[in-house]
């Protein structure tokens, strides 16, 4: 093939697809994020009602009480589409792999005192199931939410949550083997410390409004859990007490929490900013689910932080409340 | 007897995998079309990790075949050492 470039200057006829162009400011080419996301979802002339939910269309904004003129205002500040998401996670996975190599080649997990190992397993292993709940809930947002800007990152988040569950599993296998996984599950099912939290998670599994589900799972529960466990317990306490190997191999979780918080904040902020009614509704959900999450995590704080339990969880809550304020929500 | 098949993108990464499969499955035949190489084999086809490792002179994780795999048929059984396609039970 030979192309005679002198033949004619080839000017593009247009910059992007019509369903994308209306979201691109100015007359310029769309970004990859925009072409992957904006206007992607079908919107009209649906053929059949779902046999599993005949009250709604397949794609139906009325599944949520939140009202938005255009659900594509819920943009992801990370601008993730599948490619950037997968490559970002692959890079993080590389880092986790190097941490494991470092830790395992030096026997750093084995070198931890048995008591500390037991504490790590007691606190972390039941969290596999919490992450699994987070996986199901975000998957549900992907399945019933409206607009790709909202649902596609939720689906990535669902897979991330599965990744978290598997990273915790891997840690358990590295410390002790499958035994601790079984014990973690037993605690999750029977140990009184975990029952308020399990009730919380199971209650979220039946929330029908995708936006409320987003608040209860990603904002209220994870907004308190991650700072409490992966920052306060692991990064602060364990590092001081000879458990820095655990911090190394779980750094994905704290990095991930920081990264995804930007997205979660942006979603809440944009939805609440659209109307007073949205703000009231979302603030109400935020307050109610944060109160419940705080109660559910109190016994875990006790287990992880003992005499510093109250201070830790109150600190996490205060941070969440100030986050809510920054997002323009009517916090308590 | 029915054929099973497996197909890869025709590129440098696939080459040693295809060669290993042909070496391990004497009845298998490769068919080339633009961009694609398809291997047919009567009833059964095995992909061995060790053979590939010998071909390429480094460790190989069998799941790496996902990078260039295009399509396959038959029932799959996979462990760390081999992947089998077959119509047997």
């Amino acid at each position, binding site marked *: 093939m030979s192309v005679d470039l*002198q033949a004619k200057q*080839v000017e593009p006829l247009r910059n992007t697809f*019509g369903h994308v162009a209306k979201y691109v400011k100015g007359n310029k080419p769309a970004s990859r994020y925009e*072409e992957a996301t904006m206007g*992607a979802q079908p919107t009209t002339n649906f053929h059949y009602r779902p046999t599993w939910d005949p009250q709604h269309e397949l794609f139906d904004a009325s599944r949520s009480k939140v009202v938005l003129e255009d659900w594509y205002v819920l943009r992801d500040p990370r601008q993730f589409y599948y*490619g950037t998401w997968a490559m970002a996670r*692959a890079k993080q996975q590389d880092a986790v792999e190097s941490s494991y190599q470092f830790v395992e080649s030096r026997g750093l997990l084995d070198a931890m005192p048995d008591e500390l190992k037991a504490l790590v397993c007691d606190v972390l292993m039941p969290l596999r199931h919490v992450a699994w709940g987070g996986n199901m809930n975000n998957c549900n947002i992907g399945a019933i939410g409206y607009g790709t800007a909202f649902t596609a990152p939720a689906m990535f988040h669902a897979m991330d949550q599965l*990744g978290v569950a598997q990273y915790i599993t891997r840690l358990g296998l590295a410390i002790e083997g499958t035994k601790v996984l079984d014990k973690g599950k037993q605690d999750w099912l029977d140990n009184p410390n975990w029952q308020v939290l399990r009730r919380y998670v*199971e209650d979220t599994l039946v929330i029908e409004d995708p936006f409320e589900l987003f608040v209860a799972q990603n904002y209220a529960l994870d907004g308190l859990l991650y700072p409490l466990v992966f920052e306060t317990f692991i990064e602060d306490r364990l590092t001081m007490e000879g458990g820095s190997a655990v911090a190394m191999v779980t750094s994905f979780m704290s990095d991930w929490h920081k990264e995804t918080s930007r997205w979660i904040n942006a979603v809440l902020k944009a939805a609440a900013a659209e109307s007073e009614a949205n703000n009231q509704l979302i603030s109400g959900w935020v307050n109610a689910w944060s109160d419940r999450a705080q109660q559910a995590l109190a016994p875990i704080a006790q287990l992880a932080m003992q005499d510093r339990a109250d201070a830790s969880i109150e600190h996490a809550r205060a941070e969440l409340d100030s986050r809510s304020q920054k997002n323009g929500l009517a916090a308590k | 007897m029915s054929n099973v098949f497996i197909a890869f993108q025709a590129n440098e990464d696939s080459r040693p995998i295809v060669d290993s499969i042909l070496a391990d499955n004497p009845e298998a035949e490769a068919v080339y079309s633009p961009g694609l190489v398809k291997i047919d084999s009567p009833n059964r086809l095995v992909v061995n990790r060790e053979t590939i490792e010998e071909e390429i002179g480094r460790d190989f994780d069998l799941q790496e075949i996902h990078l260039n795999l295009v399509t396959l048929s038959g029932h*799959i059984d996979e462990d760390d050492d081999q992947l089998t396609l077959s119509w047997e039970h």
Partner: protein
Amino acid sequence: MDAQVKKKKLGLKPRYQAMTRGLDWQTSYQDMDKVFPYDKYEGIKIHDWDKWEDPFRLTMDAYWKYQGEKEKKLYAVIDAFAQNSGQLGISDARYVNALKLFIQGVSPLEYCAHRGFAHAGRHFTGVGARVASQMQSIDELRHYQTQAHTISNYNKYFNGMHKSNHWFDRVWYLSVPKSFFEDAMTGGPFEFLIAVSFSFEYVLTNLLFVPFMSGAAHNGDMSTVTFGFSAQSDESRHMTLGIECIKFILEQDPANVAIVQRWIDKWFWRGYRLLSIVAMMQDYMLPKRVMSWKEAWEMYAESNGGALFKDLARYGIRPPKGWEDACEGKDHISHQAWNTFYNYNAAAPFHTWTPNAEEMEWLTEKYPDTFAKYYKPRFEYYGEQHKQGKRFYNTTLPMLCQTCQIPMVFHEPGDPGSICYRETDHQDVKYHFCSDHCKEIFTNEPEKYVQAWLPVHQIYQGNCFPEGTDPTVEGFDPLAAVLDYYEIEVGKDNFDFADSEDRKNFREWKGGVEEEVSP
């Protein structure tokens, strides 16, 4: 602690077991039936979800690693293609019309698959089925997005792609793929899996991707080849999900067999009808051809499907009811579909043409029993008319099949000289069908198919005009109003390739090189 035992690395299977199955639990604060409300009403009985065999055992770390690597390779090609004006290297500008159909009719289906698998991935009670469905959900999102990114470059230089999503929701022939997938998504999760993973992915999808992508390679379109084969590498995982799910369901309870058989009958036929468009792409729209639809059908459907149904016979499953008719159709459907689009090209945002002399020869050779006898004379006649300045455009609206929504253009099985019509009455309304199989699908579930948004009916009911249109004003032109509602740029997106802006532009860009186009 015994360091020896502890250090023992788990093999792939037990490791995957710990990484997925162990995550689930029986809920007790909320009733399991409330947490998983949707996987019982279809009547499929599952006694032991632990018997589910996981197709490939990818944990998220491996998934990210391999998918990240695939994406890196793919985007390198897409970038290079745009930088080197790769669109100028294709065989001729007619080829782009295959890509138009792809972005209009296939990419939105990837999106629907993403959504449907998210639903299945949340709602199966069994964790193995859930994880497999979730991975497929994001894979399908990947396909939608990589297709948008690849075809974006073509959209900048050619017509017929710029309103693809708008068209998917509105334009008449795109209701065929749209209704197909919405039918699957509105079914329960088991039917969805049998429809998409088994009947479509496992039995039919090779026909869409493999020959078509080889065709893209042959026609100089390296970016499409790369996304196609890269997507297809996910597809092999999906096909495995298809075969695992059917074995699992059939082994769980003998009562499942009859339900699954009905779904196989239905979804094989739905999928086969949908592929008429692919058949036509392969035989008519690739200027350089790799293999005919008939050859692809023989290689991927007949021999592979034959092996599959032979294998499933031990469960009491027989080949789908429409199998014989589909095999008979391999000599006809691509020609019938192309003829239809040639007719209705005024209302379709891509270009059609009559095959040139060399292509007529190829078609005659590939279809020795049918082409010269039934189809060639029509195309020759169209070509003659066009030469005289009378390019034929059909401006009346065709009757559609209530189930597959394709115009009534298929022949009576065994009698290529006549059109197949079927009908039935339901609650005092008459419904029309293209075949026995589409009719049977309707009569099994009339309450579903009476809901169909049939484009022709909708036009006649006045639902396909721009808002505020007054059809009672003097000189009202309904076709123009419909094209307005479609947002088709008349004269650019539609009509014969010979008279198109695409052709004119491509010729100028290439420095005046003329392609072999008829007339």
